[in-house]
């Protein structure tokens, strides 16, 4: 008799414990969405932004130029892979997604495929965090990276991945993220180009390419300016102004020579004879390098 009582008591206790734990306030996930407040509209249209972003040279151009110019590979230039855990905000994540993307390309071009694995993972993680992981086929890239024969494919997939990512982000009304990724990519390219350790004999080509970035810089200024309401963007923008100053004396002069028409193999071809004269000195390069370094340090820290 007594044991039946105890047993009943036990059952009741368990039942009580059970019901007490039942979460009665049904907090629905959607409760967090009650007052929808969209990000501020931008002055530039998304279309403009897309065009401007696609005008930014992709990191392959710069890296392959360096490699062809005989610049020696330098691991120290790269953003250390274990910095990843410090990037907590979307802002940082987007910028460094660009940075790591460039690093990845740089390493691939210099055939350092084995070392790429960690960078590949970082890029994947950051893209995932930014909800654009679907454009980054980690599995394929990982497989391809196993052999240096596939470098072309790797570079193509990486590049097109970044392109798609940008377009998608703009489409998803997240152009700010797209801009940050592009900016990170660009700054890292600039950093690698301006911080070559040994100056190769045909440094002029590299310097010339650096000087040409003055045009891109203007686009960048426009893009960043577009989001200046955001204090983070404002910071970036202000830093960029310093870089603009460093570029002040760099001169790109278009010399117009009328085009000529020639007949080649029976078809008429118009040949553009114009060229641009570029004026850049070692001091200017050094100054640019310094500024780029500063900006880049801030980004990756």
């Amino acid at each position: 008799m007594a044991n039946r009582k105890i047993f009943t008591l036990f059952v009741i206790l368990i039942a009580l414990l059970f019901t007490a734990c039942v979460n009665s306030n049904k907090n629905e996930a959607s409760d967090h969405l009650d007052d929808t407040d969209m990000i501020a509209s931008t002055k530039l249209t998304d279309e403009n932004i897309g065009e401007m972003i696609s005008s930014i040279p992709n990191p392959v151009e710069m890296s392959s130029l360096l490699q062809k110019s005989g610049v020696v590979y330098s691991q120290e230039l790269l953003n250390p892979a274990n910095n990843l855990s410090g990037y907590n905000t979307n802002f940082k994540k987007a910028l460094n997604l660009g940075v790591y993307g460039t690093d990845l390309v740089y390493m691939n071009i210099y055939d350092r495929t084995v070392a790429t694995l960690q960078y590949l993972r970082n890029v994947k993680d950051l893209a995932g965090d930014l909800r654009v992981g679907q454009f980054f086929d980690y599995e394929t890239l990982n497989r391809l990276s196993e052999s240096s024969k596939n470098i072309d494919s790797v570079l193509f997939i990486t590049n097109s991945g970044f392109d798609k990512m940008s377009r998608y982000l703009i489409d998803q009304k997240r152009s700010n993220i797209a801009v940050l990724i592009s900016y990170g990519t660009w700054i890292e390219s600039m950093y690698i180009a301006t911080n070559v350790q040994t100056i190769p004999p045909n440094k002029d080509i590299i310097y010339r390419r650096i000087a040409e970035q003055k045009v891109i810089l203007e686009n960048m200024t426009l893009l960043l300016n577009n989001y200046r309401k955001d204090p983070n963007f404002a910071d970036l923008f202000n830093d960029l102004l310093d870089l603009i100053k460093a570029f002040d004396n760099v001169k790109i002069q278009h010399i117009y020579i009328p085009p000529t028409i020639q007949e080649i193999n029976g078809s008429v071809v118009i040949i553009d004879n114009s060229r641009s004269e570029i004026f850049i000195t070692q001091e200017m390069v050094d100054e640019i390098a310094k500024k780029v370094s500063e900006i880049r340090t801030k980004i990756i820290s």
Partner: protein
Amino acid sequence: MSEEILKALMQLFAIIAKQDEGLSVNERDYVHVFLKQQLNESSVKEYLTLFDNFIGGQKGDDEEVKDKVKLTSVKDSVKTLGIAKKINKTLTQKQKVVVLVRLFELVNSDKKFTPQRMAIIDTAAEVFNISREEYQAIEAFVLNNSDADFAHPEMLVIGDLANEADKLENYINSPQLEGKIIILRVPSVELYFLRYTGTNEQLLNGLPIINSRIYLFATGSVIKQPKGKPIFYTDIASTFLSDSTSINVVVKANDVTLKFPNGHIGLRNINILEQSGKMVAIMGGSGAGKTTLLNVLSGIVSPSNGNVLINGVDIHKETELVKGIVGYIPQDDLLIEELTVYENLYYNTKLIYRDLNEQEISEKVTKVLQSLGLFHIKDLKVGNPLNKKISGGQRKRLNIGLELIREPAILFVDEPTSGLSSRDSENVMELLRELAVRGKLIFVVIHQPSSEIYKMFDNVVILDEGGYQIYYGNPVEAVIYFKTLDNQINSNIGECPTCGNVNPETIFSIIESRIVDEYGRPTASRKVMPQEWNDHYRQRHKSFEAAEDYDELPEAFKKPSWFKQFKIFFARDMFSKLSNTQYLVLNFLEAPILGFLLAFIIRYIEDPTSNIYIFRANENLMPYIFMCAIVALFLGLIVSAEEIYKDRKILKRESFLNLSRSSYLFSKIGILFIISAVQAILFVLVGNSIFGIKGMYFEYWMVFFTLSAFANVLGLNISSAFNSAVTIYILIPFLIIPQMVLTGAMFSFDKINSSFGGGRDKVPIIAEIMPSRWAFEGLIVHQYKNNKFYKQFYDQNKVLSICNYKNIYYLPELKRYVENYRFRFLAKQEPHITANDLELIRNELNKENNSEFFRLHKLKFQYEDYLYQDKITFAIADSLINHINKLMEFYRDNGNYMDNVIDGRRQEMTNTPEKDREYNKLKDDYYNDFLAKFAKNQMITLYVVRLDNRLVQKIDPIYLDPQDTNKVSFRTHFMAPRKNFFGYYVDTFTFNVSMIWAFTILMYILLYYQGLKRFLDFFGDFGPIINRKLFGLKTKISKFFIKMTGI
């Protein structure tokens, strides 16, 4: 008697005899007769010469002697002292009493009670430590002749006492007896002496009693008169000893027959009638059914025919009425090895007596220990037969004590002497004998008793192969009976006339003697078959005439209340565990050592250049949680697996006490839970702090403990169901390995054989019954959701995850089906869309309509009714695509919004370097990257899959609430953040822990009703069939091998 003692005795005799007038003829005769009883003829002469020498040549000159009277006396006193002291060292108290009686007898032989002689006896008695009262009693017994002197509480008179009975303290009326037989009891050593005052021939154990001689009346003795009933030892002892309180019980077995389930007959028409005060032996060759009979008589086994009545109450039908008066002492030990002698008895007593307080119990235990002669070893641990602390005889006596303490009127004892030395055997049997004398009825199954032991029995039941009863009656007569039937010479002599030995072996060699072939070799067939012996028995056997008016059976003892029993069981178990240091140390070191090893081995630093351990970067968190679950199961099982098995004998005995099984089980469970809880604390404290899991000690402990607790009860189940320790340990892997495989940690539930009830949207059914999986899932989900870092973001990330999934994976997938329709429509491919695809679209639209987000977007597709093969049109499809696009936009915008909210908070938390450091520290300490990947299921390639006509989300299970709309079903996908419980959401951790407890309760119920045992027994019935099959196979295999090897 040893040479030395005999010498000493001669000296004492001599000293006494030469006092005063010196040795008389009578005295010398006495010595002669005495020696003749002890020795053979030649030795008698030798000792008589010795005696004469001690007397010396002083006989001749009376004058001289007279002068020296005083001197000699002093000298002799000193001598006496010396001899007595010497005797003290070698003789037991019993023997000393005998010596003293002999001394008196010597003096009495010539009635020369001079003060000198008495002074010497006095001295001897003093040195022997014989109390004054007993000394006086012995003196009175030996020296007196008048009836009045026998009116002493320690004396008993047998004779025709019709007139003088009222003057005596103890008497047995025996009208036919000529003269009187006087019995003296020496209580301190429990010895009886006998003398006879008449002149007729009375036989003591078959030997004539000489008038005025004093005989030791040993246990089992019998006095036979020419006329009248024989007087047995028990008759006399019971007059002195019988407890006035004990009731008279009569056990009557009527034609008891037992058929085993396999058709064999265990017992055939056994008839027994016995009553209190008797000790009955059940004997027989091996396999004759001795223990079976004991089990039937004691009520453990019910007979197929016939009945066993105790005072008219059927023991097998009205079990409750007789339970309290029946005690059973099995052959095996029932002791708890880790407890002391005292404690064993103490807890047993507490379980039996409800109303006694501590002191009464302690007194009772002490009394029993004293009466068992175990008091001096009461604080020794019992130990086991291999690791002996107390002797076999002491163990057996303690076992008997366990039953004695509740004072049953009938005791059933199974082979009490097996495995004991002959000395221990005798001790134990004497104890039983004494109990019988005190008024208990004792049935003893005994095998090859010695003569001494055999003679102790009042009656013997002899069984023969096949359960035939072939003899029932006096043990010594049994020898005569079988000898007579076998036509042996001297068949009328039961015991050896000179040494008094009875050889029970004779009986069995007669019963089982074999036919001899022409070469004198015994054959396999018996001379006399069991049936024939049985026929002989039946011819001789008279039916019993049992009285019909029985004493009222006492009420069964009042057992303690459920809770009290629980407390006693608990205390008993606890003390037995506490006293086992090895057990304790091992159990309590095991957990922290395992915790240390596990955590320490998998604690590593990801970054080779750094020497700072970061919890966040440790990839081994999941394996750690998994191992926690496995260790918990293991420890829980190991601790409990032998518990009940170890106690099974004690349980069998305690079933006689009718104690509550649930209180026993609860006490077991209580102790095991305490052990498991402590183990859990130690494991989690050590493991988690080394691994660096912060702020989750309670939850890990809870899960560890819960799982251990489950394993405890599971272990108790197997422990109660299986009958060998090896089986139990073999079984442990069977219980653990499926739990390991189906936690969800080793193998993804998507990737196990679908015949185990796996659905891609739900945890497979087989994993639903694995407590390890509930534990693992509970901890994973809790660790991810509720760690100090991430819990600030979880809810918002959940919204983000839902929006993201719908926008990026789910809605585009849905759209694909519609686009496919449009494509096929334009390409004129029939059918444009399958009915299944349409059903899928309808299902999913419906799901969206019921989703919690519907109240925000309120987007409902207007043409749902047209989504059938015969109704759908291109325009409808366009409209549907449009609808899906709108949904996508909604989720895109809300996702972005949520992302910004979260990011805003993150920015705010990291906007200064200090805050950023703090944020990173928090994340490093509480968050784990790899757990996050696992919980978000990021390793998969297909984020949304089609299952029948539904789409199932595979990505981010940790953010996905149960999708089943059925309110009763609690089944859902693995790692759901919360569970459905009758329409309410319950946090996964709470739910899973409760689930394991539910399993534990289920296991308890199974344990209580012995479900597993019943199940096994059910299959056990097929055992013989399987065995036969197996045996055939074995024979075939061995034949094959013999053929192969050519042996």
